[in-house]
């Protein structure tokens, strides 16, 4: 029975590792390859940490299991080792992990700065739209074609709900805000996440590498309908975006009304 329990502690980390190894092929992994440049970097850092963590996991779990195995196979009645510890070991297992942890920290800094520090945003990034979260939808405001996006609404701005069109292949900036409670802008394929904090306008930037539709969901509890803040990010060539905006402008003007109500529809 003793040996059974020791084996038990060998067994479960093995199952855990196997399930991680087969996970990508079963679809239990990232929803898609990273579709933005910062996403590529984030995934790189993830895999770096994954390697370090996996080695540590395997080593510590198997050493633990082996210590149990040694105890299980010890002749019964034989005396336990009498030791209060080892100064040398303590030094080793303090210094080595601290170097690894500092290394991991330092390796994050550049990417973090690139994603979040506003003065480091790509110079040619253009402000394409303002995204306003509200219970439970995403309201998009584009500047009137040919003008710049500002934090206040301007006549001629274009409005739409739950669909954000962005050009591919170049960095874009989104102004993120919320009309009511806190939400979070999360696009799993683009690896972008930023809270929309009441009272603040927070710029975020990303570049989409390929044409396609990507999910935009809410990642901060915002009420009962939190799960259904479903929207999509449509990434297309600049000319298609221009065409889309032109069409939107035409629709909006044909309507003859100030478009917010029309565009936002029912909730």
């Amino acid at each position: 029975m003793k040996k059974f329990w020791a084996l038990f502690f060998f067994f479960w980390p093995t199952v855990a590792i196997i399930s991680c190894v087969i996970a990508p092929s079963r679809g239990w992994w990232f929803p898609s390859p990273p579709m933005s440049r910062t996403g590529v970097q984030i995934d790189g850092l993830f895999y770096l940490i994954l390697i370090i963590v996996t080695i540590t996991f395997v080593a510590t779990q198997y050493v633990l299991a082996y210590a149990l195995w040694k105890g299980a196979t010890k002749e019964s009645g034989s005396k336990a080792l009498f030791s209060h510890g080892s100064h040398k070991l303590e030094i080793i297992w303090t210094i080595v992990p601290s170097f690894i942890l500092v290394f991991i920290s330092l390796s994050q800094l550049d990417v973090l700065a690139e994603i979040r520090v506003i003065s480091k945003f790509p110079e040619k990034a253009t402000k394409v739209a303002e995204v306003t979260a509200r219970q439970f939808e995403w309201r998009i405001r584009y500047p009137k074609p040919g003008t710049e996006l500002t934090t206040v609404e301007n006549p001629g701005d274009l409005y739409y709900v739950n669909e954000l069109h962005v050009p591919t292949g170049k960095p874009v900036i989104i102004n993120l805000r919320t009309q009511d409670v806190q939400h979070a802008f999360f696009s799993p394929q683009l690896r972008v996440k930023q809270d929309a904090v009441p009272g603040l306008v927070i710029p975020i930037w990303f570049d989409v590498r390929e044409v396609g539709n990507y999910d935009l969901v809410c990642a901060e509890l915002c009420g009962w309908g939190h799960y259904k803040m479903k929207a999509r990010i449509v990434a297309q060539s600049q000319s298609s975006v221009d065409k889309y905006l032109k069409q939107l402008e035409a629709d909006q003007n044909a309507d003859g009304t100030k478009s917010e109500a029309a565009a936002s529809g029912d909730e």
Partner: protein
Amino acid sequence: MATVSPALDAHGHADDHSHGGHHEQSFISKYVFSLDHKIIGIQFLITTLIMLMVGGALALAVRWQLAFPWENMPVVGQLFGLFRTEGGQISPEFYTMLFTMHASVMIFLVIIPILAGAFGNFLIPLQIGTDDMAFPALNMMSYWFMWPAIACFACSFFVAGGTAGPGNGWTSYPLLSDLPQAAPSSGSPQTFWLIGLTLVGVSSMMGSVNYLTTIINMRAPGMTLFRMPLTIWSMFITAILQAFALPVLTAAGFMLVFDRLGTIFPTDIHSVFFIPANIIVNNAAPTVGGGQPLLWQHLFWFYSHPAVYIMLLPAMGMVSDMLACMSRKPVFGYKPMVYSMAAIAGLGFIVWGHHMFTSGMNPALGMTFMTSTMMIALPSAIKVFNWIGTIWGGDLKFNGVMLNCSGFVAMFIVGGLSGIFMAAVPVDIYFHDTYFIVAHFHYVLFGSTLFGVFAAIQFWFPKMFGREMNDTVQRWHFALSFIGFNCTFFPMHLLGIAGMPRRYADPYLHGYLEHLLPMNRFITISAILMGFAQFLLLGNFFYSMFRGKKVGRNPWNANGLEWTAPSPPGHGNFDIAPVVYRGPYEYSSPEAEAIGQDFILQTVPHVKGVAKITHH
């Protein structure tokens, strides 16, 4: 098993006389409004075990919805008035209430009070060799303040006519938790929740003041700081954390209550600590204010990060004691163990921002918080290595206590390692508020703390009731809980990597999550298995209380002072006032051998003819 050390042989008969000088007490003052730390500890223990089942039931309802979205709940769906309106279906409002109350019950009514309240109370006076807490009346109040808190949490389920309990998460971020119009749950249920939270805080605060005073002032002669069992060190450090962090949460709670004054009595007057201007919620008039919602997050996490260690450190201490005893070896690196707990506590105060990496706070702060968070993994790692060092080469006893303690170490490794992903800001940008976090904190809070508690219940049960628990049942309970636990929570890492956000009533609405339904079913089935396994523990607990095999003072052949007292100790604990001559972990030492044992009680004076050990 019932070996009594030589030092005690002469007094072995003293069990029945321990009440000696005390007058007869009525049932009420002895078992209900008791001033005795042991009774209060056991009251806390039984209350929290019941709450554990309540919290578990709420979790299973959450799991039901994720595995069988919008399908009627079997059996319970028809039982409660709460469901009946939906014909047994969980509505989205109800779902937010389920996970909010699951977390609130588990954190505030189970984990915190079971560690500090139950084991802190029971063990501190016994392990430091004194007759009771410094302030017995305060101690009694700390227990009885739990009940109004429980009542407030219970009321919060029903005040809104049973349609919605508090549903803002245990983190209660404003404005959702601040503006009553923001959700059905943000009205009076949220207010009751906040008051309940404050009362739990009062209870904890009374406890921690008591623990600090008792540990500082009332140690038996010879019980120097570095002869204290690690359990006592952990309780001491935890009490410091509580005492310094809790006021911040209480203040933040009151600020939120003042922002919400209108939900208590009809008034338009309220503060705007967390309310900025021009917010339009549910078509209400725009808010007037100059507040800052992020302030809440800072205050909340300034408490709640230290609080996650309040929910772990005592278990770490107890596991160290139990591992040494079950390995018949001294704790490996006693002082590094103490220092690393102190480091965790110290660093614990400067890492709160790691919960806010996506909140839009200054990126320079993010870098600082990232580095400090990485550093807190270091003392955690040191502790793991020392636990493994303790087991290494030991004469291991493979009983329920040992298995649960080994489970604790194994699970803590996972929780600590997943923490590293989230401490790295860029990676956390992806993982924040996904199931990866859910996996992480269940590995530390359930996988570590609760498995540690399972071990501690069995280990100190003989001291509480003079009887032992059935070990076979305990080992079955361990196996089923451990398998159930890992099948439930390990796959959640993968759900997180797949980008599944937490707190979603129906993730499958989103195409990229549809294929995760089978995995969620698997998780739910495992969770049900794990939930039902807990009846083994409860059954064993209550059965053994009355029918378990009677045992003597020291059934585990352990070294601590508590094992020199009768089982169960009478009022006043010790029949002979203990004097301490050595540390608590001298298992298999030459001195122990010299008296023909593999342990040596802390009360045994230096054994003649054996060289003195000077390790510490």
